[in-house]
């Protein structure tokens, strides 16, 4: 018996060793050469050349890095609560996380889309998707605050999102999971083929305010949508989506959704959809979804329940969508800067097919179809094909582009980036990544005018690259110089959460517009105190509202009495500072809540339900001045039946305490 256990243990050890080794890329183990350090060195006090806006994956946030240094500047809370600054905890920001399911404090943010004008970055907004409870968010790149979150109805998971059209007309949201939609959703799972549908939502962006609303929703056959890109230049007006599980499996997809040699790229003519809507052919259907907006003047978010959505059925309304066969379980679906080519990466394919937009158009005109799938025409593979990249590597996932006509494709299984020429389809160079790269990003890579210079790899496994921190290790990115013929590894840098897609944008498009303070004059928060004269405490039934001001280095009021057990206390803290980089924080002992971090000129509210009788300290949590430790106060909590009068003060010293 003992020998048996021993041999099992030995076997396990050997197996682990083999698995471990198979994760390592073949080829050079150390690819860094001499001048790498100088290329990423940004001297103290100097700025980086690019902002790198990186999705946080399962932390539900975005993070902001500098390139080429790889320094982390900030984590931007989007779909997850963030106790560090009170996002999702303060009364003002709680509505941002409302959904038709109620308050959802977490999500899984996979992809970034930066706003575009004429196909180029304009530095106004960053959009992100929530993969789990389907939503999209808009972040204002002047304030780096999440300003808007829109839920998506009839979606079983929003993966294929929030990719953007060349003038920011729309961002899209394609369902990962097809699900039963409409009135009758209580159906056997085994009726997938009959009852499960996908949807593609086209979310319209207001060109001035950036506000989002669902323009229309396309009902599609039940498959999984993975990724997408808008057309550009000649292909503007079209959108391309990768689909997998055209087997329409509903269990053990690992096996059952990988049966066919080819799945599909779905081409969507969204201008045609707009024509049908103009002709009144859309159908308004009932739906429940929530739209949350942050007001920059009141500093408060509000939620609205939406009740209907405009749907189009492309199986009936012809010429909106077409399928193109694509080997095998395609993941990335990327349009090149000229808008002529669509690169589809089959996760399980040994080649990369590159489709030609012109050929797709010719095939549609000539009805060069091989058949239909669920009522949608399927274009012949060869008729749409520009050509195939032969033997590129194993497990192609995503492709970005430089300004010289080259493509950079990530290979998960063989852990490498492969550079190839879009016209000639010749492989030009390959470099290992450490390890198992997912997405990659070239500055401006998805736009009409890439900036080139670098490619950044976002890896799924770091294993032995950093000092170990127990079973859970840091996630990481790697920076490569692509200015020459050969790609050169420059830098590893750790990332927060799990990075999926990221975009890089020249700092000159964002930094000069960055907001330094909120003007106190413009603050229209209903509980603002514009100056200490307006600081006060008011009782409304069992609610106690404290209109509090914060300025270096005191809070007004800092002595509050007359709070009783059973009260709910709202501290509305206005930061009176009008200087850059002087936030004040605020926390209350025992509050079942986070802190709030209040920017200059802003008002934020911390809700506190006292749970015991006594005197409770509160203080400023953000080191603000030499007398920061003095920035504190006391709230007295009395029994429910007590008759201690409500009173408040700062700087009033009573000679003898009473009562």
């Amino acid at each position, binding site marked *: 018996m003992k020998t048996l256990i021993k041999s099992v243990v030995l076997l396990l050890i050997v197996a682990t060793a083999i698995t471990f080794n198979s994760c390592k890329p073949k080829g050079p183990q150390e690819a860094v050469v001499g001048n790498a350090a100088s290329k990423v060195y*940004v001297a103290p*006090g100097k*700025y980086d050349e690019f902002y790198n806006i990186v999705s946080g994956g399962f932390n539900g946030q975005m993070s902001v890095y500098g390139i080429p240094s790889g320094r982390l500047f900030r984590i931007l809370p989007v779909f997850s609560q963030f106790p560090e600054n009170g996002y999702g905890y303060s009364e003002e920001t709680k509505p941002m996380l409302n959904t038709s399911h109620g308050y959802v404090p977490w999500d899984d943010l996979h992809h970034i889309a930066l706003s575009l004008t004429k196909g180029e970055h304009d530095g106004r907004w960053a959009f992100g998707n929530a993969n789990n409870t389907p939503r999209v968010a808009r972040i204002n790149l002047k304030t780096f605050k999440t300003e808007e979150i829109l839920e998506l109805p009839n979606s079983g998971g929003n993966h294929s999102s929030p990719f953007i059209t060349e003038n920011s007309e729309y961002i899209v949201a394609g369902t990962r999971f097809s699900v039963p939609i409409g009135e009758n959703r209580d159906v056997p799972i085994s009726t997938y083929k009959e009852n499960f549908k996908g949807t593609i939502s086209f979310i319209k962006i207001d060109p001035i305010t950036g506000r989002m609303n669902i323009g229309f929703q396309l009902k599609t056959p039940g498959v999984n949508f993975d990724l997408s890109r808008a057309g550009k230049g000649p292909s503007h007006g079209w959108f391309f989506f990768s689909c997998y599980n055209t087997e329409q499996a509903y269990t053990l997809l690992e096996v059952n959704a990988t049966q066919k040699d080819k799945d599909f790229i779905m081409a969507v003519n969204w201008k045609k959809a707009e024509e049908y809507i103009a002709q009144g052919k859309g159908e308004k259907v009932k739906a429940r979804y929530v739209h949350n907006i942050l007001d920059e003047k009141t500093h408060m978010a509000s939620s609205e329940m939406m009740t209907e959505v405009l749907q189009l059925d492309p199986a009936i309304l012809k010429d909106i969508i077409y399928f193109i066969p694509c080997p095998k379980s395609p993941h990335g679906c990327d349009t090149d800067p000229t808008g002529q080519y669509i690169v589809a990466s089959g996760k399980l394919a040994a080649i990369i097919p590159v489709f030609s937009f012109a050929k797709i158009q010719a095939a549609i005109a000539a009805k060069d179809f091989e058949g239909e799938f669920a009522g949608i025409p399927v274009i012949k593979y060869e008729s749409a094909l520009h050509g195939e990249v032969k033997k590129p590597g194993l497990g192609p996932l995503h492709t970005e582009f430089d300004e010289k006509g080259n493509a950079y494709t990530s290979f998960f299984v063989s852990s490498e980036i492969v550079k190839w020429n879009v016209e000639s389809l010749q492989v030009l160079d390959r470099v290992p990544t450490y390890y198992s790269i997912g997405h990659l990003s070239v500055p401006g890579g998805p736009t009409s005018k890439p900036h080139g210079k670098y490619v950044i790899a976002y890896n799924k496994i770091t294993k032995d690259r950093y000092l170990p921190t127990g079973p859970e290790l840091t996630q990481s990115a790697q920076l490569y110089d692509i200015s020459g013929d050969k790609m050169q590894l420059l830098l590893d840098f750790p990332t927060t959460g799990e990075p999926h897609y990221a975009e890089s944008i020249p700092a000159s498009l964002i930094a000069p517009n960055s907001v330094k303070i909120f003007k106190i004059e413009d603050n229209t928060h209903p509980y603002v105190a514009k100056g*200490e004269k307006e600081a006060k405490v008011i009782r409304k039934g069992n609610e106690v509202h404290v209109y509090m*001001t914060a*300025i270096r280095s005191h809070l*007004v009021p800092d002595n509050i009495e007359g709070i009783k057990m059973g009260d709910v206390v709202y501290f509305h803290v206005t930061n*009176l500072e009008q*200087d850059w980089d002087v936030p004040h924080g605020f926390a209350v002992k025992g509050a079942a809540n986070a802190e709030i971090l209040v920017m200059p000129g802003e008002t934020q509210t911390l809700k506190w339900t006292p749970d015991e009788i006594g005197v409770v300290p509160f203080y400023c949590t953000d080191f603000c001045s030499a*007398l920061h430790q003095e920035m504190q106060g006391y709230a007295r909590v009395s029994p429910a039946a007590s008759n201690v009068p409500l009173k408040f003060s700062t700087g009033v010293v009573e000679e003898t305490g009473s009562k």
Partner: protein
Amino acid sequence: MKYLYIISFVLLAFSCAPEKPKGSEEFPDQPTSKSAVEDVISDPTKGIGAIKNVTLKTPLELDRVGRGLSIYDMKCGACHKLTDQRVVGPGWKDITKRRQPEWIMNMITNVDVMLEKDPEAQKMLELCLMRMPNQNMSIGDARDVLEYMRQNDGEK
């Protein structure tokens, strides 16, 4: 031999010299506020900044006094009392008798430079141990506040 080491270090240092990222000149390396005017005025009692000469009128301009009061309540009163009591900053009583109007307005609109270079402002910092914050006030705002200070000091 020792020197050889040093030389090779120097060479190494040069070969690793940081490349300045392109485009970093398009926006300033360090945050500077728009009002940061550095030229020193010949009359040191007027302070340092854009305000060289202020004309005061008698009687007081009452519309300015009114605006100055509301600015005081929102942006100044947290630290400056109207009496001679010092709290975070000095009380305002008799400030218009102690300081030139130009000095007061430069202190309000150009506070970072004043605290760095003006000896009188530096004395106040040593006394209060709290840098007066930039409260994002225009020259017009500062002039209104000055008029309110004059009223506070008993001028009619």
